[in-house]
């Protein structure tokens, strides 16, 4: 536990991955991951909001009375998202269009409030910054992993670069909504299988008998 507390960045990055472990922010996770580019753009926008919110929350944390805690955090998150919205629009309208409504919806992405409430409200600015960055990068990583499977299978390309030549038959399903659910389920099953195998290897070989259920 003490080790986790020491490293808020690494913790958010993988061990407590917002996508695969905490299941926070599922809406953008499934909605904008049909291409790697969108996944990364969404991840970076979320990271920016997370860091900004965490830093702001952490710096005003001692001034916020308990009664208006959540309201204050949401107001801060909404501010950060509005700022991000303007920035993305200024950087590229194409990316802005690809992310569509989900950019504004970052404000209700549970990962923002969850980190503000669970971490930034209790920790100093620099640690909150690291936590926001770690969770943001972890979120981006998760989104990119989903986006990779979906783009490679669904369009036969990676970051828009064709991988298998013109004769490849893309599995269109992966670009469509059911593909989002399936891809996330696939990653979860893969992790479960890996953990299970590791656990089995650690336990005595006799444990093989019990796997039945």
């Amino acid at each position, binding site marked *: 536990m003490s080790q986790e507390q020491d490293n808020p960045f690494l913790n958010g990055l993988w061990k407590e991955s917002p996508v695969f472990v905490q299941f926070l922010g599922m809406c953008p996770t499934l909605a904008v991951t049909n291409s790697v580019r969108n996944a990364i753009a969404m991840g970076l926008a979320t990271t920016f909001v997370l860091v900004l919110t965490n830093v702001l929350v952490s710096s005003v944390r001692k001034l916020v009375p308990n009664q208006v805690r959540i309201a*204050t955090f949401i107001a801060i998150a909404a501010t950060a998202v*509005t700022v991000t919205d303007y920035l993305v629009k*200024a950087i590229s309208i194409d990316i802005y269009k690809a992310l569509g409504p989900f950019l504004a919806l970052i404000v209700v992405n549970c990962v923002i409030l969850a980190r503000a409430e669970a971490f930034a409200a209790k920790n100093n600015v620099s640690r909150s910054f690291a936590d926001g960055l770690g969770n943001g990068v972890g979120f981006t990583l998760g989104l990119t992993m989903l986006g990779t499977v979906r783009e490679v299978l669904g369009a036969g390309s990676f970051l828009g670069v064709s991988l298998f030549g013109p004769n490849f038959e893309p599995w269109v399903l992966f670009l469509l909504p059911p593909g989002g659910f399936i891809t996330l389920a696939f990653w979860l099953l893969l992790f479960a299988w890996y953990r299970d195998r590791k656990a089995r290897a650690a336990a005595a070989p006799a444990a093989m008998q019990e796997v039945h259920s």
Partner: protein
Amino acid sequence: MSSFSIIRCLGLVSLISGVLIVGASLVTKDQIRINQEIIMRDSIAQLLPGVEKQVAYGVEPNGELTRLTSVDAKGPKMFAGYDKQGKLLGVVLEASERGYADIISALYAYDPATKAIVGFSVVEMKETPGLGDKITKDKEFLENFRKLDTSKPIVAVKHGTKKNPWEIDAISGATISSRAVGRMLQKSMTEMAPIVTRHLDRIQRGTE
């Protein structure tokens, strides 16, 4: 004490929010406008090759035109494109219609001189990848809009059976999306062609 601290907190947060939002909005405002104009200019240049000068009009509900200064304005819009000599090449109009998955919205170029549609490009759609989304890039399909007659009602016909200049040769296997394109153009033309004709002099001058 507690009510004071609540007010202090809310005041502080509103202050921070206000400064950040207004700041971001001011800093990015110009860049956003430039981005939007570039996108608009590029798509008009693509629809009307050789265009040198553009004028944007807003279309009022009563059919009157107003000169626009920003592409951000609300309501239906129309863009007139002119070549080097200032001759009107055509007008770019907006159209949208419900397709297979969701609403398809598009821009198309109309040449009032020949009363024909001379270009078409999809702005937004969610049609099935590999089937309906061919309306955005299928060469054979886009060939329909090099010169599409608008004197008769525009209609999409089965792939390979186009006979008349006002028919659209549908994409095989994507009949619904192709038909939606036909419907959106027909609908937009019935509405907009008379307006363009009525104001043709003014549009051709292109100065007001």
